[in-house]
C-alpha cells in the first residue's frame, strides 16, 4: 500500500514537473480553466440568488407555493406577468369549502387562499362630473332653504372656471388644427356656457342649466378618465395572513365580511394620481435613483414638456378662490407679474436641473394641498363594470378601503399590477349566478325573447332562413333591449344595495372560486405535494390541476430558467473549448515525450502508469487553476454581495425582490465549479492517455537499426 502511495507520488512529481517544464502551455490551458470555473462560481451564485429572491417575490406576493385550478379549464393559469391583460379562461370550481377541505387533507398543505383573476375598466372621477354633482347637491339644498350661499357661489365659480378652460383649449386646438376637428355643436355648446346670459339665468332655475352642463359640457372634458384595473378577488383576510409581505399603506384593510376594494399602491400612483404630479415623481426618480439629468435625458425633457402643455388637468380643479391662491403663490415663487394662472403653471413646470428640487418641494408643500392629487380617494366608492363570462355587463360599487404594497417589491409593476377585492363581489362581477340572480336573468330573457341556441344552429338563428331576411335585425334589437334591461337590473337596483351590503362567511366559503393559492409547510416537497393534491382532488371528485409557483408566474417564472439555460450553455461552450485545448496540449506533450514514455515502458512501467501520469497532469492543472478560478469567483461574489447589483428596471426589481441584489455564495457553487473542472480535465486526458499507452518500448531504442 505504501509502495502504491510512493508510486503515486512519483507520478505526481513527474506530472507536476512536466507541467512546469511547459509553463506557457500550462498557463494558457490554466487560464481557460480559471475563467471557466470563475464563471461557474459567479454565474451559479448569481442565478441561485436571483432564483431565491424571485421565488420570495413570487411566492410572497400572489402565487403561493402551488396554484390549484380546475382541470377542466381551457387555459393554463398564470397569476402574474402574463403578456396580455386578459385573464386566463378557467372553469370555476363551484364549492370552495369542499376544495379547501380536500386540499387541507394533503399533509404538506398549510393554508389555502381562494382566488380569482379578472380585469375591468372603471370610470373614475371625471372632474367636471364631480364638480357638477356637488353644485347640483348645493343647489338642491339652497332651494330647500339651507344657508349654503357661499359654498354654492364658490362651486359655481369653479364650474365657470372649468368652462373658461375648456373654451380656451378649444381655441388653441382651432388655432393649431383645421377648424373641422371640433364639431359645430360642441363649439355652440361651449359658446353658450361661457355667455353671461347663461349664468344670469342660472340661479333662478339651476336644474335645466345643470342638465345642459352635464350632458353637453362634461363629456368634452372627460378624456383619459378610464382606469383599466386588473384585480384579484380573494378572501382578503386569508390573503393578508398567507402573504405576509402585504402591507397596507393608506387607509385600512377591508373589514371582515365587508365588500371592498384595495388599490395596489403601484397602480394607485401610476394610474390614479394626477398626471402632472406623477410626472414630477418620475423626474425625481430619474434624477435620484438613476442619476439622470434633465439636460441630458430626453425622457425627463418629455415629462417636463407634457407638464407645461397639459396644465388643464390642474386648471379644471381650480375654483375662484383656488385660482387666486395659485396666482399669488406662483407669482411669488416665479417673481412674475403674469396674471394668467395657466401661463404661470406652464412657467412653473418648465424646470431645469438647478431648480427642480425646489419646485418639486414647492409643488407638494404649497400647491398640492389645494388639489385632488388622486382621482379616487381612500373612502370613495368605485364603480367597477365588468363583462361576465356569459357576456353581459355586470357592475359593482365598492368602497376603496386603502392601498397596499408587497414589502420589498414597492416599485415592481409585476408585483404591483394586481388590485384586491373581496371574493363575493368578484364572483358577482365574474358572473357567478346566485339562485335569485338566475331567476331574474330568466325573466329578462323571457321578456326579451332570447332563447338558447345550440352552436350548430347559431348561424341559421342569427342570419335567418332565406325567406326570413328581416328577422335578424329585429332580434338584434331585442338583444340590445335585454342588455339594457340587464344592466339596469345589475346596475341601478343592486348597485345601491351592494355598497354597504355585508356578507357572511358561509357566502364566502360556499361559493365558487377560479383558483386557489396553496401555502405548504415544507417548500422542498412541492413536487410530491402537487402529486398528492391532484390525487386528493381526483378522489374527492374535484378534478384539479396543481402547478408550481414557477409555472403560475408565467413568463416571469421562466425567466430564471432562461438565465440558467444561458449560463449553462456558456459554461458548456467554455468547457468544450477547454476540453479541446487541454486535450491538444496533452496530445502534443505526449508526442514530444515519446522516447521518454518508451523508456518508462522499457524499464517496466505498465500502461496504466502512463495513463495515471497524464490523468494526474490534467487533474493537477484543473485543480490548481480551477481552485484559483473558484477563489477569484468567490471574491467577486463577495464584492458584488457587499455592493449589490442595482435593479435597473421593473423586471429586475421583481427578480431581485427589491432595489438591489446581494448574491451570496453557497458551497454548492464552488463544488459544482470544481466538479465540472475535474470531470472536464479527466475526460480531456483520455485520448492522450490512449496515445501514450500505444507507445512501444521500442521507442526507447534510438539506434540506427
Amino acid at each position: 500500500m505504501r509502495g502504491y502511495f510512493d508510486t503515486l507520488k512519483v507520478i505526481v512529481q513527474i506530472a507536476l514537473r512536466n507541467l512546469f517544464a511547459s509553463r506557457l502551455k500550462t498557463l494558457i490551458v490554466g487560464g481557460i480553466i480559471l475563467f471557466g470555473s470563475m464563471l461557474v462560481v459567479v454565474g451559479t451564485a448569481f442565478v441561485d440568488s436571483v432564483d431565491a429572491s424571485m421565488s420570495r417575490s413570487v411566492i410572497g406576493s400572489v402565487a403561493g407555493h402551488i396554484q390549484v385550478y380546475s382541470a377542466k379549464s381551457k387555459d393554463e393559469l398564470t397569476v402574474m406577468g402574463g403578456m396580455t391583460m386578459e385573464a386566463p379562461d378557467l372553469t370555476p370550481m363551484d364549492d370552495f369549502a369542499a376544495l379547501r377541505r380536500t386540499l387541507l387533507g394533503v399533509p404538506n398543505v398549510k393554508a389555502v387562499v381562494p382566488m380569482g383573476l379578472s380585469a375591468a375598466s372603471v370610470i373614475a372621477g371625471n372632474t367636471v362630473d364631480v364638480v357638477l354633482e356637488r353644485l347640483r347637491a348645493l343647489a338642491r339644498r339652497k332651494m330647500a332653504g339651507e344657508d349654503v350661499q357661499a359654498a354654492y357661489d364658490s362651486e359655481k365659480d369653479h364650474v365657470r372656471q372649468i368652462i373658461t378652460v375648456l373654451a380656451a383649449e378649444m381655441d388653441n386646438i382651432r388655432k393649431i388644427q383645421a377648424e373641422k376637428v371640433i364639431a359645430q355643436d360642441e363649439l355652440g355648446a361651449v359658446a353658450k356656457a361661457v355667455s353671461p346670459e347663461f349664468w344670469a339665468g342660472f340661479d333662478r332655475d339651476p336644474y335645466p342649466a345643470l342638465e345642459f352642463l352635464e350632458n353637453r359640457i362634461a363629456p368634452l372634458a372627460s378624456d383619459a378618465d378610464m382606469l383599466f384595473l386588473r384585480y384579484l378577488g380573494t378572501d382578503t383576510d386569508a390573503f393578508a395572513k398567507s402573504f405576509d409581505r402585504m402591507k397596507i399603506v393608506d387607509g385600512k384593510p377591508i373589514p371582515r365580511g365587508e365588500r371592498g376594494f384595495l388599490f395596489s399602491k403601484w397602480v394607485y400612483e401610476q394610474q390614479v394620481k394626477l398626471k402632472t404630479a406623477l410626472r414630477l415623481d418620475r423626474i425625481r426618480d430619474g434624477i435620484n435613483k438613476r442619476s439622470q439629468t434633465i439636460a441630458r435625458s430626453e425622457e425627463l425633457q418629455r415629462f417636463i414638456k407634457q407638464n407645461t402643455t397639459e396644465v388643464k388637468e390642474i386648471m379644471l380643479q381650480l375654483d375662484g378662490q383656488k385660482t387666486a391662491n395659485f396666482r399669488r403663490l406662483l407669482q411669488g415663487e416665479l417673481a412674475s407679474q403674469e396674471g394668467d394662472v395657466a401661463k404661470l403653471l406652464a412657467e412653473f413646470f418648465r424646470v431645469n436641473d438647478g431648480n427642480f428640487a425646489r419646485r418639486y418641494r414647492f409643488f407638494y408643500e404649497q400647491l398640492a394641498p389645494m388639489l385632488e392629487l388622486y382621482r379616487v380617494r381612500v373612502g370613495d366608492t368605485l364603480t367597477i363594470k365588468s363583462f361576465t363570462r356569459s357576456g353581459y355587463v355586470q357592475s359593482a360599487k365598492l368602497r376603496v378601503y386603502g392601498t397596499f404594497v408587497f414589502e420589498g417589491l414597492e416599485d415592481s409593476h409585476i408585483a404591483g399590477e394586481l388590485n384586491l377585492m373581496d371574493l363575493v363581489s368578484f364572483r358577482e362581477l365574474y358572473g357567478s349566478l346566485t339562485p335569485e340572480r338566475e331567476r331574474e336573468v330568466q325573466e329578462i330573457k323571457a321578456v326579451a325573447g332570447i332563447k338558447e341556441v345550440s352552436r350548430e344552429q347559431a348561424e341559421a338563428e342569427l342570419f335567418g332562413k332565406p325567406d326570413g331576411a328581416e328577422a335578424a335585425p329585429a332580434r338584434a334589437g331585442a338583444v340590445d333591449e335585454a342588455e339594457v334591461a340587464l344592466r339596469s337590473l345589475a346596475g341601478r337596483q343592486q348597485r345601491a344595495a351592494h355598497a354597504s351590503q355585508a356578507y357572511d362567511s358561509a357566502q364566502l366559503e360556499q361559493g365558487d372560486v377560479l383558483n386557489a393559492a396553496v401555502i405548504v409547510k415544507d417548500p422542498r416537497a412541492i413536487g410530491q405535494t402537487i402529486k398528492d393534491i391532484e390525487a386528493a382532488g381526483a378522489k374527492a371528485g374535484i378534478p384539479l390541476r396543481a402547478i408550481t409557483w414557477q409555472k403560475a408566474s408565467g413568463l416571469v417564472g421562466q425567466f430564471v430558467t432562461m438565465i440558467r439555460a444561458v449560463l449553462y450553455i456558456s459554461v458548456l461552450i467554455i468547457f468544450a473549448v477547454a476540453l479541446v485545448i487541454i486535450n491538444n496540449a496533452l496530445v502534443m506533450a505526449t508526442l514530444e515525450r515519446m522516447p521518454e514514455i518508451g523508456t518508462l515502458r522499457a524499464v517496466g512501467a505498465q500502461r496504466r502508469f502512463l495513463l495515471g501520469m497524464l490523468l494526474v497532469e490534467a487533474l493537477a492543472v484543473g485543480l490548481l487553476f480551477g481552485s484559483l478560478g473558484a477563489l477569484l469567483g468567490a471574491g467577486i461574489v463577495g464584492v458584488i454581495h457587499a455592493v449589490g447589483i442595482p435593479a435597473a428596471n421593473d423586471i429586475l426589481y421583481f427578480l431581485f425582490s427589491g432595489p438591489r441584489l446581494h448574491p451570496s455564495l453557497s458551497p454548492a457553487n464552488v463544488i459544482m465549479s470544481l466538479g465540472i473542472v475535474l470531470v472536464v480535465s479527466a475526460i480531456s486526458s483520455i485520448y492522450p492517455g490512449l496515445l501514450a499507452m500505444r507507445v512501444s518500448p521500442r521507442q526507447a531504442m534510438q539506434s540506427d537499426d
Partner: protein
Amino acid sequence: MNYIVSVNNVSKNYNLGQVVVPALRGVSLDVAAGEFLAIAGPSGSGKTTLLNLIGCVDTPSAGTVTVDGKQTGQLSERDLTRLRLHTIGFIFQSFNLVSVLSVLQNVELPLLLQRTLNARERRERVIALLDRVGIREYSKHRPSELSGGQRQRVAIARALVTRPKLVLADEPTANLDSVTGTNILNLMKELNQSEKTTFIFSTHDARVWSYASAVVRLADGQIQDRVSAEEAVRAGALPAGRPA
C-alpha cells in the same frame, strides 16, 4: 549449461507499408549467466532487433526467445513488462533519463515501479549504487546538468538498481568520446565481475570488443560467427556486409 537467454532460430520481419523487410533471419544464440557478450555488426545488421527481442520489448515473427526460462512469444504485454521490470536492466545509447527527475529519482524509478522495497531501503540501495558508479555527489542534479559520461553512469545505476539477472546495453558508448567510453565499459565490466550480472551489449566499435567475454558477429540479419574477444580483435574488422 544454464542459459539466461536462449534464442532459437528466430526471424523478425518489419512491415514497411507493403514491403516486408527481414531484420533477422534464423538467428540462434545462447547466453550463459555471467557473460559479458558483445553483439557486433554494422548498421542495419540486426543488432538492435536482436536486443529488442532479448529485452522483451518485441516478440519474434518466427522461432522462440527464452529469457530466464520464460518464452517471450507466449507472454502477454503485461507479463512482458513485468519480466522487463524484474529481470532485465536497460542501458540506452542516448541514456534516456527522465529529464524532469533528479539523478536519485531516475535511479529510484524502477524500484518504485517494483513496489517491493520501502522508502529507506530504496534510498540506501540507490545511494550505494550511485556511490558505486561514482556520481553520488550529483544525486540531486537533473540529467541536463550532467555530462554524457555522467548521464550514462546514471543510466547504468538505473539498469542495475533492481539487481536484474540481465543487463542489455544498446551501443552504450556510441554517444561518448573514447576516454569516457572506455571508462563506462570498465565500469560495466567491473559490475559484471562483482555482481555476476549478465551483460549483453551491441556495438559496431571494434575497440570495445576486447572487453567482451565473447563477440557475436551479425551481418544482414544472420549470425556470422561467435568468437572470443581475442579472436575478434585479431580479425580486426567487422564481418562482411554493408560498410559501417
